[in-house]
């Protein structure tokens, strides 16, 4: 296959970027999208040009490090038959001779570092604000001390599969980080261990989410539609329920 790529090139956070067109030849349909970018970079390096910077690591769809907007959808969800991360999108999803637009996540709280790589540390700060259960090492009771019904355990698990890639923010017209925040809220709210901090957690996490500059949620659903782990939209309703309940509780600020 031969592909025409239009890639966002931006030298650093301060620079203004632009879309630059490249031709990539001899692409195999079995290549992953990132392997196709590797191929481009090998070519650019040999030509003495600067390779395209992009984040990636595990290349098996679980670490959450990779993520670019492909033809206008995060992780190329619009071109993929199934929910996917960028590293698990394969070139057979595109036709020979196609022109593909590749852009970084675009959101104020995710500033571009270079080309397609962005800074998602805002997500870590949301977790720091309460996305945990305070259980010091060594202080745990026996694992069977608190049974968890299967339905709640499964719902906690569904939410906990979030990989923190940021596709939800990239896809959201409001650049809201609500699905990410809601996934963590739901995960911990479903478990007995998460109850003591349940209502203080939500206040501090939401406050940090807003302070980081993410937009508000208007229930459009783009986030869930591109989510590689298909985190359901109902986690956001869970967050809202807990937030409303927390207004009537003394926990937290």
């Amino acid at each position, binding site marked *: 296959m031969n592909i025409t790529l239009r890639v966002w090139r931006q030298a650093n956070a301060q620079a203004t970027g632009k879309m630059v067109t490249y031709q990539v030849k001899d692409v195999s349909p079995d290549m992953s999208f990132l392997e196709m970018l590797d191929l481009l970079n090998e070519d650019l390096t040999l030509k003495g040009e600067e390779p395209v910077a992009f984040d990636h690591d595990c290349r098996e769809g679980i670490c959450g490090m990779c993520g670019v907007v492909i033809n206008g959808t995060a992780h190329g969800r*619009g071109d993929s038959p199934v929910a996917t991360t960028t590293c698990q999108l394969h070139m057979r999803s595109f036709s020979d001779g196609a022109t593909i637009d590749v852009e970084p996540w675009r959101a104020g709280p995710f500033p571009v570092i270079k080309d397609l790589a962005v800074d998602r540390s805002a997500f870590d700060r949301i977790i720091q604000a309460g996305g945990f259960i305070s259980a010091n090492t060594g202080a745990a009771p026996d694992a069977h001390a608190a049974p968890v019904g299967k339905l709640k355990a499964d719902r906690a698990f569904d939410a906990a599969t979030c990989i923190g890639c940021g596709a939800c923010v990239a896809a959201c017209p409001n650049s809201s980080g609500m699905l990410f925040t809601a996934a963590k809220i739901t995960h911990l709210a479903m478990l007995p261990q998460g109850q003591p901090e349940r209502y203080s957690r939500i206040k501090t996490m939401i406050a940090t989410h807003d302070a980081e500059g993410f937009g508000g949620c208007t229930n459009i659903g783009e986030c869930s539609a591109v989510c590689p782990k298909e985190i359901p*939209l109902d986690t956001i309703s869970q967050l809202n329920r807990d937030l409303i309940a927390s207004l009537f509780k003394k926990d937290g600020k």
Partner: protein
Amino acid sequence: MAVTGLVLIGFLLMHMYGNLKMFLGEHSFDFYAEWLKGDILYPLIPHGWFIWLFRAFMLAAIALHMYSAVTLWARAKAANPQAYAAKKQLAQTYSARTMRWGGVILAGFLVFHLLQFTVKATLVKGTADLTPYKLVVAEFNVWWLVLAYGLWLVAVCMHVRHGVWSAFTTLGANTSPKARAVLNGCAWVVAILLYIGFMIMPVAVLTGVLH
């Protein structure tokens, strides 16, 4: 946003119900119109106060709704310093996409609507001294006015379509994929009900069923 939105939707449903009183005849409608301005909650509050309290309440709801919208809009704008060169939406409905500009258009037309039927400053065919029933009949005999209201209500109902779903979700009612389908279904029902309920009367006037 959600609470004020639901208040406004509740008002719309009530307003629609009131409009349908046109079909019960001139007397019934005029009496209803008079009652609204008159004795509700009397003697708890003095004659004629209710309507003003109600108007103040509605105004507050609208103002808060708009304030929330502007805040959300401003936050979204601040969070989106650079637009995508190519962007494709996978889940966003047309009504969700048009909430903001749609809301502005709604607000503009609302001003016209109030000037027309409440303040009676922009009457097209009727005159201010007519009884409410006669005034409505006079105005909706103008075909382009009915058409304008028909279009406006499309905008209203689209706004309501996303609004109902979104308000209930914000209030925590979207508890599962099934609930999501139900809420979206309800949103459609409310929107279509409002459209039919509001448009049936002007069309009846225009076609001479009501005169």
